[in-house]
């Protein structure tokens, strides 16, 4: 049903429909509205069979979910900015253990100087932690990505981060199509953990892996993450079938046909970008856009694409002209020219950094 609703509230609603069993978070702007709403839903009994836990830090929040996920429950948290960085160790840990945790990152700048407004520095800092990173271009996508995130996480046994621009999306009251519980249930089956702490069948989870096997284990993790490249579009397609809304999957293009310039972007800025492209196109400029939804795993198809950009939305220091989102370019920079050339990278080369 279409509602005029705040992005955070909408996200909280659909996360509730995904029937999480343990929700745990530490307050940080601009993620608070999501978690406040979830706490209220649990308290009201709108979400049943769910534990909502207030903890003393983001590090503890994700740690609680690591325990809960290992014990076989569907888990969810949300954070932002310094909070994400404070849980960094646990972020890597959750990925390393293959725990299908879903986390909203209400993207916010990382201080100093302290700034609660939006940029992508926080999630970019954790881009190589082994999580899937999905970026929402608007709140409808934010809502839809969360539902897909649980499917993806649980199907792949990897944690998924849904990045939603702080304030610009989280606090924006917009028209959003909120799905029905029946639709979510049809799309997202009950969670069946692949590994579970259970006295009936004891397991050791989180053993110490020495140099003899570490690389191999990490390689397996990498390969698993790369499988998302196929799975994300597949799940998006299935989502479209259930919810009647086509979703971009790994990425979407905008007026790319005949474009001499493609602007690569992600997040809420893309709406403005599309308006600008429309204006430029109207005045005869051959320009289009590529919107990256799945930043991790990075869509390798982009590597031969000719790009100026990307449109960077995170702060950076110590790097000439480019922030983290643009750092994939060096591998394909020489392929970029005014005129796009359909050159492919050599077999096996991976374009993402």
């Amino acid at each position, binding site marked *: 049903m279409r509602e005029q609703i705040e992005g955070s509230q909408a996200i909280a609603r659909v996360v509730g429909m995904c029937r999480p069993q343990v929700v745990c978070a530490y307050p940080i702007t601009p993620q608070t509205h999501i978690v406040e709403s979830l706490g209220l839903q649990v308290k009201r009994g709108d979400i049943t069979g769910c534990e909502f836990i207030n903890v*003393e830090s983001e590090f503890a929040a994700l740690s*609680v979910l*690591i*325990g809960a996920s290992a014990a076989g*429950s569907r888990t969810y948290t949300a954070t932002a900015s310094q909070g994400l960085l404070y849980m960094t160790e646990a972020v890597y840990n959750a990925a390393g253990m293959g725990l299908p945790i879903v986390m909203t990152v209400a993207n916010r700048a990382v201080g100093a100087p302290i700034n609660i407004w939006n940029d992508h520095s926080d999630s970019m800092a954790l881009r190589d932690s082994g999580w899937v990173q999905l970026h929402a271009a608007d709140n409808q996508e934010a809502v839809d990505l969360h539902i897909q995130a649980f499917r993806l996480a649980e199907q792949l046994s990897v944690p998924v981060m849904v990045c939603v621009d702080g304030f610009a999306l989280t606090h924006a009251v917009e028209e959003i199509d909120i799905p029905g519980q029946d639709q979510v249930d049809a799309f997202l089956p009950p969670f069946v953990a692949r590994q579970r702490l259970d006295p009936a069948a004891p397991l050791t989870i989180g053993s*110490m*892996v020495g140099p003899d096997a570490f690389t191999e284990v990490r390689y397996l993790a990498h390969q698993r993450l790369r499988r998302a490249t196929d799975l994300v579009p597949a799940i998006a397609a299935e989502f479209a079938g259930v919810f009647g809304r086509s979703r971009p999957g790994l990425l979407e293009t905008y007026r790319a046909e005949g474009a001499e310039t493609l602007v690569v972007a992600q997040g809420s800025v893309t709406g403005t970008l599309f308006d600008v492209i429309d204006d430029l196109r109207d005045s005869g400029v051959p320009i289009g856009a590529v919107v990256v939804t799945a930043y991790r795993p990075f869509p390798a198809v982009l590597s031969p694409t000719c790009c100026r950009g990307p449109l960077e939305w995170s702060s950076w220091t110590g790097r000439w002209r480019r922030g983290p989102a643009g750092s994939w370019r060096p591998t394909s920079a020489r392929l970029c020219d005014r005129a796009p050339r359909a050159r492919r990278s050599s077999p096996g080369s991976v374009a993402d950094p």
Partner: protein
Amino acid sequence: MPSTPVRFYQVGSFAAGNRLLDPSLRTVQSEQGRTNSLTSGHRACQGCGEALGARYVLDAAMRASAGQLVVVNATGCLEVFSTPYPESSWQVPWLHSLFANAPAAASGVAAALHAQGRDSVRVLAQGGDGATFDIGLGCLSGMFERNDDVLYVCYDNEAYMNTGVQRSAATPPAARTATTEAVGPEPGNSFGRGKDMPRVAMAHGIPYVATATVADLHDIEEKVTAAMAVRGARYLHVLVPCPLGWGAPPDQTVRLARQAKESGLFPVFTARDGEVTEVSPIRHRIPVDGYLRAQRRYRHLFEPEERTEDIARIQAMADANIARYGLLDPPQRGPQ
């Protein structure tokens, strides 16, 4: 604190078992078919107090929970020596996440089990003194404050042994570690107020806090059993001597723990809802001198010349504990 007076005098209730003792009064460790939650083949040092303490605690917890137990482990010796891939020594469902987050991860496990309606499965978190006193204190305090249904066990060997014996907040005054070398007039670790973790736990008002040593098996098991009978956040602090870090032969582990208790340096007691309710009195009081002499980490107190002032200060700490907890006052424990 044996609950039943036992008319038994040969080895009383102090040994692990004894053929003459009613089986219900023997320890879990004396059972022929005990769980061995931490099984053989682990890579703990010879005479490791922590390996011993962990098995004591977990086997007792397994009995108290009828085998329905999940264990969460902080990073540290216990984790490293028990799970070098691809080997695991754990016979219980076991999770290791990080150094600082065992209490939080355990809270999560408990929450998940509750959400799944499996409250009969109990959760135990464990870590060393570094994980407990230092890096993980925030998560531990949170777990206490929320009164999450987790028994947290600290195996205290009084320093960071896994990384090569560096000082922790649990390192006692005058002890030498790699970061508190006894150089010149320095006595090793400084004489500060330290961090009294059991008291920190008690300050949260949680339902159960207790201390124990690996030298008194009956006491540990009774405390684990008592703790498992309670819901909510519980804290058990077990002194586990480390042959490597303390500088003592591996066969002295249990003796040192005993001496720590009998000297008064390590008070053994139980607190419920923030108040001390029971004390394990000293059976045969000893001066701290012998305890200190037995450990290389205190050798600088005796060589090249005896630092009587420092030793006296340590004795004063023991005396203060004895006075504070009434370690000499209560009737002698054990069979009468």
